[in-house]
């Protein structure tokens, strides 16, 4: 059932579409050179969907970007979570790694883009590297915080039962830290998309950011809007996917909360 909020939301969206139509098509207050009309948007979408634009069809651009985000994100998780667990577990590791982190962290991930291009060129590897950098930091920090926030009695109980170190990490530490780990992953995913789009805007030969870049150079507002909608949809879909994984992984925790 749709509640009051839902109806107002639907009404808002309908009103916005009507306003869009009114401003661009009916009255022409907003010229097509500034913002596309619904018809122009539709034509651009059909063009890139069928004939293609900027060297490929929409699906191939989108899938390429998705692949890069998935790879960078995967590498970041595979390195960030273990490092965070280790720093949370071992105070010496924390003391040694923290200062290096303090030096590198203030540099925004996007600032690595020129260096990545110098090192690896305009291809995929430079993008995966910057995505990795941007997604790495939130996963490390939140994993670390997750381990540090675990109730001490739980660890002591496990230790008293003589749990070996590896089982301790796998069955006590990692699950107890997982709510915060997932918080970190959500931030990481967001950072991944921002970084990818920026990297593709700076220099690429394929991908959603490249579509945006070409459309900007061609002064093609319809295609710019198609590119932005695609970026939004990809971000939304991957976030929803991560949310599903989270609900599955944390089902024990959610049940306990209810």
């Amino acid at each position: 059932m749709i509640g009051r909020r839902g109806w107002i939301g639907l009404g808002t969206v309908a009103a916005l579409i009507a306003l869009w139509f009114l401003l661009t098509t009916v009255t022409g207050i907003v010229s097509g050179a500034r913002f596309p009309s619904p018809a122009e948007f539709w034509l651009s979408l059909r063009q890139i969907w069928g004939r293609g634009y900027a060297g490929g069809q929409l699906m191939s651009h989108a899938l390429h970007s998705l692949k890069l985000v998935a790879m960078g994100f995967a590498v970041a998780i595979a390195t960030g979570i273990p490092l965070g667990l280790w720093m949370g577990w071992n105070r010496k590791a924390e003391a040694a790694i923290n200062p290096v982190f303090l030096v590198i962290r203030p540099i925004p991930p996007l600032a690595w883009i020129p260096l990545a291009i110098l090192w690896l060129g305009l291809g995929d590897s430079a993008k995966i590297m910057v995505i990795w950098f941007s997604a790495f930091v939130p996963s490390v920090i939140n994993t670390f915080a997750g381990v540090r926030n675990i109730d001490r009695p739980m660890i002591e109980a496990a230790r008293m039962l003589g749990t070996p170190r590896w089982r301790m990490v796998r069955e006590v530490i990692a699950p107890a830290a997982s709510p915060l780990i997932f918080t970190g992953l959500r931030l990481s995913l967001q950072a991944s998309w921002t970084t990818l789009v920026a990297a593709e805007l700076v220099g690429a030969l394929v991908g959603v950011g490249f579509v945006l870049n070409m459309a900007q150079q061609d002064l093609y507002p319809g295609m710019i809007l198609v590119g932005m909608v695609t970026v939004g949809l990809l971000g939304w879909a991957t976030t929803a996917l991560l949310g599903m994984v989270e609900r599955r992984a944390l089902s024990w925790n959610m049940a306990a909360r209810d």
Partner: protein
Amino acid sequence: MNSTPLTWRETMAWGLLGVVLFLGLWSGLTTSGLVPRQFLPPPQEVASRFIQLLTSPFAGATLPQHLGSSFMRYAYGVLLAAAIGVPLGLLMGWFRLLDDIVTPIFDGLRFIAPIAWVPFAALWFGTGIGGPVMIIFAGAFPPCLINAYRGARFVEPRLIEAARMLGTGHARMILEILLPAAVPSIVAGLRVSAGLGWQSLVGAELIVAAAGVGFMMVQAQGSVQTATVMTGMVAIGIVGMIIDVLLRQGEAWLRRRRGLEA
């Protein structure tokens, strides 16, 4: 878990070891010639380039001048985001209808990375000041809005009821009840905004700008001057850190003051 916290001395020793290892590895790799200089210059070369750029211009300006023009755009963008986001958030926290109208729009736009506004920003406002300011705004706006909204929504209901019983009008309710109660949340949001805005600024300048640190880095990348690129990174990091420290101090100061008042 190694549960006993390290002493201050141990922390410093391990920290020093970490930094020394990091710098040693970096300078060892580069000075030994294992990694070509063009690829990764040794730390001392980056340091000397940094000092050199303080006075001699690159890409049309010295480093402080680039930083200055970056910072001006940054300040415009963040201030604009705060000036629109905070009042709108408070209003949404008070007027339910406004909340129901704005939230779906906001949720729809949320998934578009701020940097994806670059083409429209360039088309609408040009690449001088307007375009970058709009991108910084796009990055800094959401936390301002969300935190002001949350702060206003979670005001203690008793306060609102008491004020309502005394016949307080909408304007006074927002300014004298919601705003003061939401200040901690708003300030926390501003800090996040400031960080995201700085990040967006770098992105904007890499793509569309004719001055600023990001522009300097892109120019240096084009002419394969790795030391200059890294100088830009260091400068961006330092300014970002200063902004964060200042805002943290401001937040702590505010908290102390409010603590005393209460």
